[in-house]
């Protein structure tokens, strides 16, 4: 096989090789959806009003004719009903955010499973975790700008979780949320969502991509029948622009089509936030289900230790996410202690089956996350199954203790068997 002469391009680009496998597109898909979010978001700010003052609604939605609405909600209704193409714009922003977070999560899973965090790439793995946290914060702040009936509870829960941190919680919560009154929060969240968090994400993304170039991409080992192992990659510099354009066009088409077919985040029929009003079916966006499920499933706790009150929101909303994030953060270090590989070997994108402990760890992480997410929807589950909510919650609590370790052991056993059948 001859290597075609790469065209004269910046040297860093010529020397960056990316393997040919669909899973390596997850990161680029996230970047494209982020650009879509930036562009649609900028246009949305032209029409959005970050204010909770009551204004008389004079738009074309018959439901609110003559009613006093919070300005933020009224402006969102105006975008949906009266701005040309506004409904599509909002839906595209929402659909792109779902694709964005999903692609980031799958990308993180790919990096974890393939061992792409090893060696010098660990620094970039940490940057990636920070980016994931920023993305979740962007999602949460964004969905609360709408000021619909879900916002009130969502913001109050966020305030409670921040306030549950011992010693500094109340001050921290007041700093971020400007106080316990939901009215005060929207203006604060607006600047977080449109300025602080996006800028932080862009800086982190720049560092992330710069480190990918600097560290080089991992390459894919490909087994051949004869002649031992072969390594496969594509020189990124060749046809980069056309591939980027193709990916961008396809991702944009997917997002626009999804937004056309599915009413992502339409709020006109939901109604504004009004104090004292709560709906029965109020849920955050899907990627916040694990946190919501954690404070729902964990039991009531009220213990005071050294002047700090430990409560359910602290355990489920702070400690459990920190524990999960910390495990993802520390796992590469632990693996590095017990599973030493040469620097050359660390540049290979490993098949997960060859690292059974890693497979077990990822299984544990994913199982806990999925069970917590189910917990957030326990009332829906109860309706579907036809069992009392309390029973569903008790079953999920039990599963949370039993299922993760059992599934992790099964995954370990299966991966080890596959690995022995098919050695590297």
């Amino acid at each position, binding site marked *: 096989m001859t*290597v075609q002469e790469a065209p004269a391009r910046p040297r860093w680009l010529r*020397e960056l090789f990316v393997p*040919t496998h669909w899973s390596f597109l997850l990161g680029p898909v996230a970047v494209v959806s982020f650009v879509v979010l930036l562009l649609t978001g900028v246009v949305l700010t032209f029409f959005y009003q970050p204010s909770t003052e009551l204004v008389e609604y004079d738009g074309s939605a018959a439901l609110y004719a003559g009613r006093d609405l919070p300005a933020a909600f009224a402006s969102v209704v105006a975008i949906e009903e009266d701005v*040309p*193409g506004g409904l*599509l714009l909002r839906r595209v922003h929402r659909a792109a955010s779902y694709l964005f977070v999903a692609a980031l999560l799958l990308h993180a899973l790919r990096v974890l499973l393939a061992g792409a965090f090893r060696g010098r790439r660990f620094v970039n793995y940490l940057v990636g975790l920070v980016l994931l946290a920023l993305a979740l914060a962007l999602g949460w702040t964004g969905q609360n700008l709408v000021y619909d009936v879900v916002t009130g509870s969502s913001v*109050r829960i966020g*305030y*409670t979780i921040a306030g*549950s941190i011992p010693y*500094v*919680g*109340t001050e*921290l919560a007041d*700093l971020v949320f400007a106080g*316990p*009154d939901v009215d005060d929060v929207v203006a604060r969240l607006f600047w977080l969502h449109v300025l602080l968090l996006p800028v932080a994400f862009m800086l982190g993304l720049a560092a992330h991509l710069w480190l990918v170039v*600097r560290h080089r991409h991992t*390459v894919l*080992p*490909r087994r051949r029948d004869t002649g*031992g*192992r*072969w*390594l*496969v*990659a*594509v*020189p990124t510099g*060749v*046809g980069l622009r*056309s*591939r980027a*354009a193709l990916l961008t*066009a*396809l991702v944009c088409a997917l997002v626009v*089509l999804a*937004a*056309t077919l599915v009413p992502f985040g339409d709020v006109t029929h939901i109604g504004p936030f009004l*104090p*004292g*009003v*709560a709906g029965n079916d*109020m849920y955050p966006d899907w990627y916040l289900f694990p946190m919501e499920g954690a*404070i*729902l499933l964990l039991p*009531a*706790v*009220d213990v005071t230790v050294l002047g*700090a*009150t430990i*409560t*359910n929101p602290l355990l489920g909303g702070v400690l459990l996410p920190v524990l999960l994030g910390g495990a993802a953060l520390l796992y590469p270090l632990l693996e590095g202690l017990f599973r030493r590989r*040469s*620097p*050359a070997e*660390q*540049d*290979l994108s490993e098949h997960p089956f060859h690292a059974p402990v890693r497979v077990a760890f990822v299984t544990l992480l994913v199982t806990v996350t999925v069970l917590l997410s189910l917990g957030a929807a*326990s009332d829906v589950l109860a309706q579907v199954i036809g069992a009392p909510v309390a029973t569903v919650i008790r079953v999920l609590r039990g599963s949370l203790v039993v299922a993760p370790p059992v599934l992790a052991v099964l995954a370990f056993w299966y991966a080890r068997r596959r690995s022995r059948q098919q050695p590297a």
Partner: protein
Amino acid sequence: MTGVRPGSAGDRLRRPVPVGVGAVAAALLVAFVAGVFLGWPTAALGLALTGALLAVAVVVGQLRGPVAQELVWPDERHPGDAPVATAAAAAVATPVRRRWVLGGLGGLGIGALAGVGLLAWSGRDGGPVTAWRRGVHLVTAEGQRIRATDVPVGGFGTVWPEGSVRADLSAVVLVRLATQEAEPPTVLDWVVGDRIVAYSKICTHAGCPVGLYQEDTDSLFCPCHQATFDAARGAVPTFGPASRPLPQLPLGVDDDGFLVATDGFATPIGPVRG
């Protein structure tokens, strides 16, 4: 090598397929822009834009040069060799300066400690303040005072302190018990006519409004995280993640028979703070 097409990008552009699809893309894009100004329905706008983007993708795919080629080379490395990408491309990677990383982390740590110190130093207040005082009447969302005799079984849902309707944290849920008279730990002096009780509507778990009242069990129920409180027994939590009862509002009747608060809340409302 598969996927390689002969000729330059210019040659490929002059073939009929890209020209035709490119024209379709341009037409759909024009239709989308026109549709925005003409106020087309969302479905038409979305389909036009989707079609335009897909057509663009087809054109780009047609114009692509020899991009599908892979570099394949035998893995002849031995343990301890230079990293493979370096070997393949004669890379010039230099490690990120460890000192910078450590210095950055140290700086972040010092900054975080200073921030925590500042927060802890900035002092604390005694929890959310409500508008409930001695002599403040209970009113509906429309501002109407409430006669004790008019409270139906099950109750009114949300009521407010007079003059502070829709003051979020002052929301109170007013209930006439359906199945039994109030009993301790309910403060019986704060109950009107043995059955009318009022509790803070802010859930002690995470601060959502306690939305539902179940008459058959006299329980109050929070839709956010399924916390359940026994309204006949001081709103103590009976199921779910809440650890403390909903604070009870001291309730009385004035000379005209209207419900009135005889004092503010005795305990802080809302979730426990850390």
